């Protein structure tokens, strides 16, 4: 599964993209956040930010409760600030 990071989440994690293989009990976006946070201090720091962040599964906005089964790409990002 590919995980992507954008904006300050990318800077904090230190990469824009990585391949991960979480165990099968990592079922939701929230589970993935918890699992990734345990992988490194940088991940933990990025996800501990008090500021809200959001996620997308296969380029569709997801909630933290959305299941990740079958997902090929999960992305994390701060609130959108385009326009």
């Amino acid at each position, binding site marked *: 599964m590919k995980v992507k990071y*954008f904006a300050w989440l990318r800077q904090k994690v230190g990469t824009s993209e990585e391949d991960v293989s979480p165990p099968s009990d990592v079922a939701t976006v929230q589970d993935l956040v918890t699992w990734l946070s345990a992988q490194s201090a940088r991940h933990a720091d990025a996800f501990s930010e008090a500021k809200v962040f959001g996620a997308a599964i296969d380029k569709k906005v997801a909630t933290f409760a959305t299941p990740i089964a079958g997902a090929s790409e999960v992305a994390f990002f701060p609130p959108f600030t385009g326009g």
Partner: protein
Amino acid sequence: MSVRVQREDFDVGAELAALAAGNKRVGAITSFVGLVRDLHVREGYHREAVSAMTLEHYPGMTETALEEIEAEASKRWPLEATLIVHRYGRLEPGDRIVLVAVASPHREAAFEACHFLIDWLKTKAPFWKVEDTPKGEQWVGAHEGDDQAAKKWER
């Protein structure tokens, strides 16, 4: 109905001229151009000089999000054509960021749809801005006013 995400600048006159060329049902064309300002007013009071801004986006997701926003506008109003062009990369004060244009038989529909498109774009399309300021790089936070602006279109 057309969306583009690009690094290059765009020519507003050419885009508007092409929007509904030859379509004689069009009575109204509205447009919005967003530009980089040299000042960012943070939290309503604190002002900071901005020397440049870099826009990042999520290729693939961005285009889909913009197309969905356009489709929603076309469901709500009688539109003959719409266009969204959004830039990414490094931009300086005075540079164009985004163009939203709408052609409709009717003026009210053209205004409302154009306003809707930029309001929804701001909260539903995956773009992020980081500004160069005297304090260094600063990520632009989500603007509460933008959420409120987007909410007024919710059904």
